[in-house]
């Protein structure tokens, strides 16, 4: 498996505090990789660095051989590296369908002026987006809610809509920020199936997550962070036996690793 | 040079006090109080009436200004801002409501006090002249009082129970609510306190420059500038902003005297550039 995205010696300092310290790993085409670690380990900073919502202090992120760190987030998304957000981050006042429709924008071949004038190309784009939106909503089980105002959706559907928005961009790599946070067991299991489904559509997935059982169930490989540094990397069973990982979790008095 | 510095400090102390009230209301309720300048003018007219017309002592007049504005602030919050915040779909509504309140105050002030500028008898006579600095005693007194009020306000926010509650509220409304802070009561209290500060400065300055019904809007604009320079919603920022604007004006009016309005053009234009580079002012939190 060839690496599609590579993180090389990534470091981020916030006014003296080192949030991410010299982290390197790579993400292989078609896998699901989870980044875990106790609270404050630097997971979300790493996540923002990869999606380019933060600029690294040193080091770089490359995607398909091209450096993406330091570029504008929308430009990175256009390359095919797309993030989702924690919690209910959606376009609240738009309908579910419009949420997904608008996220198709980076695929458009017509220009903005074309959409204003309603050119043939713009109309072709719109037709294509509508078809793809139906497909995505069907895949994520949101079809019946397509016309509902997004802000009124229950929690579980909100998360699905977040993923739908991500999928609309036709990403090569989807970065999921704590996709199972705040879910009960059943919801989590459904979401795990969903994420696997996303991978089966040919999208490489990287996720940052707290929920250990879910991570163990879903991931092909796991990267463990502690105090901003990578302390382990391997398959779920390797990570479960890794002494450094067990120590990190015991020392942090965080929730159990769920072995 | 010393003269310019003294003038700047004198102006800065007044300005800081105005900005403090505005920033407090903003920090607590995310409301940009367009009517702040009008509150200042109202405070001025109260002192004018009590001290200038009824010939009661100046301190009594100041207290009257403070109390009446605090009352007005509390009523505004309870009967206008709170319901609109609760019912509107957009955050912008409060800003527009504040603009309408500013109109209302302008109208009331004009009806009750007329267009004419009003002055009061001097509170202190005489001028301090050290050779390099010339400054009237009443200005020294007013500046000193302003500094005392600022210090008092900061101590209040730091050490009193309502002060601590309001700081918690400003930091994170939801968290403060979870911690058991009575959000409604302290929003109301904070709005009243902000209005009180505006009234107090208005009262203070009547003794120096008098009061004029039409200047509310201009005062508001200046207060916005200070808050922006320092960073919205931060006590230190309001004080810094007030001092910076006071100094800029003192220096600008001296150096660019011959050009008149150019002073303000330069100040405004540099402010726009400053904010474009440093969006949160000198010490503001991100995105206010």
């Amino acid at each position, binding site marked *: 498996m060839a690496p599609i995205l590579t993180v090389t010696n990534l470091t981020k300092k916030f006014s003296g505090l080192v949030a991410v310290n010299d982290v390197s790993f790579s993400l292989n085409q078609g896998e699901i990789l989870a980044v875990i670690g106790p609270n404050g380990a630097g997971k979300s900073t790493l996540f923002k660095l990869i999606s380019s919502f933060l600029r690294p202090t040193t080091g770089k992120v490359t995607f398909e051989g091209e450096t993406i760190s330091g570029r504008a987030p929308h430009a990175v998304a256009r390359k095919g590296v*797309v993030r989702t957000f924690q919690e209910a981050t959606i376009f609240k006042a738009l309908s579910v369908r419009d949420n997904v429709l608008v996220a198709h924008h980076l695929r458009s071949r017509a220009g903005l002026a074309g*959409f204003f004038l309603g050119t043939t190309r713009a109309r072709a784009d719109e037709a294509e987006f509508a078809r793809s939106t139906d497909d995505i909503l069907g895949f994520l089980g949101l079809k019946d809610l397509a016309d509902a105002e997004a802000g009124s959706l229950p929690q579980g559907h909100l998360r699905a809509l977040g993923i739908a928005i991500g999928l609309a961009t036709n990403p090569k790599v989807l970065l999921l920020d704590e996709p199972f946070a705040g879910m009960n067991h059943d919801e989590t299991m459904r979401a795990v199936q969903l994420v696997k489904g996303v991978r089966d559509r040919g999208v490489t997935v990287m996720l940052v997550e707290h929920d250990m059982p879910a991570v163990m169930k879903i991931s092909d490989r796991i990267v463990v962070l502690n105090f901003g540094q990578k302390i382990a990397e391997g398959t779920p069973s390797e990570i479960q036996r890794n002494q450094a990982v067990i120590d990190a979790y015991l020392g942090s008095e965080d929730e159990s690793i769920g072995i | 040079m010393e003269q310019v510095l003294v003038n700047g400090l004198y102006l800065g102390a007044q300005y800081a006090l105005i900005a403090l009230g505005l920033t407090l209301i903003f920090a607590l309720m995310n409301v940009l109080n367009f009517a702040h300048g009008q509150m200042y003018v109202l405070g001025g007219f109260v002192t004018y009436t009590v001290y200038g017309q009824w010939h009661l002592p100046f301190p009594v007049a100041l207290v009257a200004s403070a109390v009446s504005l605090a009352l007005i602030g509390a009523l505004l919050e309870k009967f206008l801002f709170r319901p609109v915040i609760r019912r509107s779909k957009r955050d*912008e509504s409060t800003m527009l409501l504040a603009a309408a309140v500013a109109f209302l105050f302008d109208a009331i002030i004009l009806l009750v006090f007329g267009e004419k500028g009003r002055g009061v008898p001097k509170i202190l006579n005489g001028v301090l002249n050290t050779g390099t600095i010339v400054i009237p005693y009443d200005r020294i007194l007013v500046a000193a009082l302003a500094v005392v009020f600022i210090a008092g306000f900061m101590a209040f926010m730091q050490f009193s129970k309502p002060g601590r509650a309001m700081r918690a509220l400003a930091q994170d409304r939801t968290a403060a609510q979870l911690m058991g802070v009575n959000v409604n009561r302290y929003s109301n209290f904070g709005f009243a306190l902000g209005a009180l500060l505006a009234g107090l400065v208005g009262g203070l300055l009547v003794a120096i420059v008098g009061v004029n019904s039409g200047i509310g809007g201009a005062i508001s604009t200046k207060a916005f500038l200070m808050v922006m320079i320092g960073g919205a919603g931060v006590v230190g920022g309001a004080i810094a902003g007030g001092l910076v604007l006071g100094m800029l004006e003192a220096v600008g009016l001296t150096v660019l005297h011959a050009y008149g309005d150019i002073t303000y053009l330069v100040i405004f234009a540099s402010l726009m550039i400053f904010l474009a580079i440093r969006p949160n002012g000198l010490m503001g939190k991100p995105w206010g």
Partner: protein
Amino acid sequence: MMSDRLQIIGYAVFAVVMLTVVPFFTVLAGRNDYLYTFTLIALLSIASAGVWITFAIGRINIGQSAYALVGGYVSAILVATYGVSFWLSIPLAGLFAACIAVVIGLPILRLRGVYFSMVTLVSTEVARLSALALPITKGAKGMVNLPMPGPIAIGGITLVPDFATLENPRIAFYYVAIILMLITFLLVWRLMRSRIGQLFVALQQNEDLAQSAGIDIARLRVIAYAISSFLGGVAGAVFSAVSQSVYPSSFTTQDSINFMLNCFLGGLGYVFGPIVGTFVLRFGWDLLFQAQRFQLLIYAAILIGLMLVLPNGLLSLIPSRKGAKR
């Protein structure tokens, strides 16, 4: 799409009334002053439409007066100093305002909430003070006695007569303003129904999310702001011709706030909100003239009352207009 059709029909009826019934009766009644009020309302609602577009991307713009002033001066200078046709000066004034908006907008549109509002508020003052200071704008005296708009002729056929030769130029100006207003709102409506409008709303809802979906938010924000300022410039240009003058105080901070109030009162969720808001506010103001010294008091009290009763605007009264959202 039924609601689309209803809106278009409603708008067409409104257009016909404004183009025939209103001028017929005002002329019949000999009320040139009403004609002037309508002209003003049309121009102010064009500027308000600009402010409405910045509302659509989630920015509160209190600086539209700056662009109206710029437009007024550009048109006045082009016409009076350089002898350019007034008709050509309208788009040029708009474009000039839009260019300034791009330059200023790139840095300041990164600001959100109050910070953006405050900078725009300051920009109104900067425009006023610049007009006072620059030699080309003739300082506090302003530019007065501007010539009337000249004729438009294509191939020897006069499409628009020379306004100076008209018996009643007021009615001619009325038509110019109303037609411009009708075109403006049709275009804004089209804009907001298109993907661009959807993108604007996405921006207003959540810029981070929009960005993560690959939307170039910086570019879209500048586009919205430039369109907004273009409309401000156009309104200012026509205003300078109508009043045949432009002063540093032709558009003030007060006007900037009024533009914002127009949008809000009509309803921020409705494209045609600014028209409704401007009509009601301006007419309300003029009607209250009877109240003399209580004019401002009553006006402010009514405004506050409306905000309490209808926090989402006048158009939220009409439930069937729900489709007009966005």
